[in-house]
């Protein structure tokens, strides 16, 4: 089940906790993986850990030209991109009344617009080959909202809407477009939260623990697989029961 031998996957934000776990899981299923991100050393360390079938393709997704170039470098490294995981994301939290335009724009640019550009660029080859998987890593807050994250929540909700539209456009070509929505996962992004807030958040999770990046990676592997070919336009919530939608 879920064998990805012969498939090529590009994972953005692969130096982060969730991105690295996704790259490891896809690689473990036999896929070639291109690791993208801005922290080159971390990407190279991950590639060294994975060994064969792993390639480093750094890119700063707040830069339009770099975003366009990323697909070309991933295709140069692996031959093609069958599976795109739009995982790169950042936060610039603040209450809306005090949120700066730059902080709004940067979050939308990296979390949503770059994902669109990358999707558009890989669709061409996927259409020709009549096979493709695009998986967006969104967030529970894109569905529930969260104070202090108007920009982040908007970008993540936008990704869900975009994925549904793309899914409808390309379903007839055997290309699926889905999202995975993590809840509260233990990563560098959530480490910065104050302990009190972490305690409150954990208390709101019926599973009684934070999620592990591997919990998310397993969902991505499923959606990338041949077996998930009839699943499209969906959002898979992986959140320990924190929100049942």
């Amino acid at each position, binding site marked *: 089940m879920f064998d990805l031998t012969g498939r090529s996957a590009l994972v953005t934000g692969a130096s982060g906790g969730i991105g690295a776990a996704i790259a490891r899981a896809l690689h473990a299923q036999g896929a070639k993986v291109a690791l993208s991100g801005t922290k080159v050393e971390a990407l190279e360390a991950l590639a060294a850990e994975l060994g064969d079938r792993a390639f480093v393709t750094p890119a700063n997704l707040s830069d339009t030209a770099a975003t366009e170039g990323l697909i070309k470098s991933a295709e140069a490294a692996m031959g093609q991109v069958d599976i795109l995981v739009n995982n790169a994301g950042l936060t610039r939290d603040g209450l809306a009344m005090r949120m700066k335009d730059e902080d709004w724009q940067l979050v939308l640019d990296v979390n949503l617009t770059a994902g669109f550009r990358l999707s558009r660029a890989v669709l*061409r080859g996927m*259409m020709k080959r009549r096979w493709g998987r695009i998986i967006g890593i969104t967030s529970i807050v894109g569905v529930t909202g969260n104070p202090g994250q108007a920009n982040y929540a908007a970008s993540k909700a936008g990704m869900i809407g975009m994925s549904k539209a793309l899914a409808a456009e*390309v379903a*007839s*070509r055997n290309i699926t477009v889905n999202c995975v929505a993590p809840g509260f996962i233990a990563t560098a992004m959530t480490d910065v939260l104050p302990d009190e807030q972490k305690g409150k958040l954990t208390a709101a999770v019926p599973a009684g623990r934070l999620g592990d990046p591997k919990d998310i990676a397993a969902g991505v592997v499923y959606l990338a697989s041949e077996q998930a070919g009839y699943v499209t336009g969906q959002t898979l919530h992986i959140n320990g029961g924190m929100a049942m939608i």
Partner: protein
Amino acid sequence: MSDIAERVKKIVIEHLGVEEAKVTENASFIDDLGADSLDTVELVMAFEEEFGCEIPDDAAEKILTVKDAIDFIKANSAA
């Protein structure tokens, strides 16, 4: 000039997987050759690639038949 027509027809045959005999100049991509809206977008992109020209959306909308494509490319192609 017939070279352009041949290249256009070749792309259409390859892309839509239709018999050469069906790809006449007056054949409509959608009505006669079974293309759907995605196919027409892919065809336009394939023409752009082959002939090194840009086909704007408003022009692409008017390319309904093989002849429309040949005429547009003859008028606008650098190749």
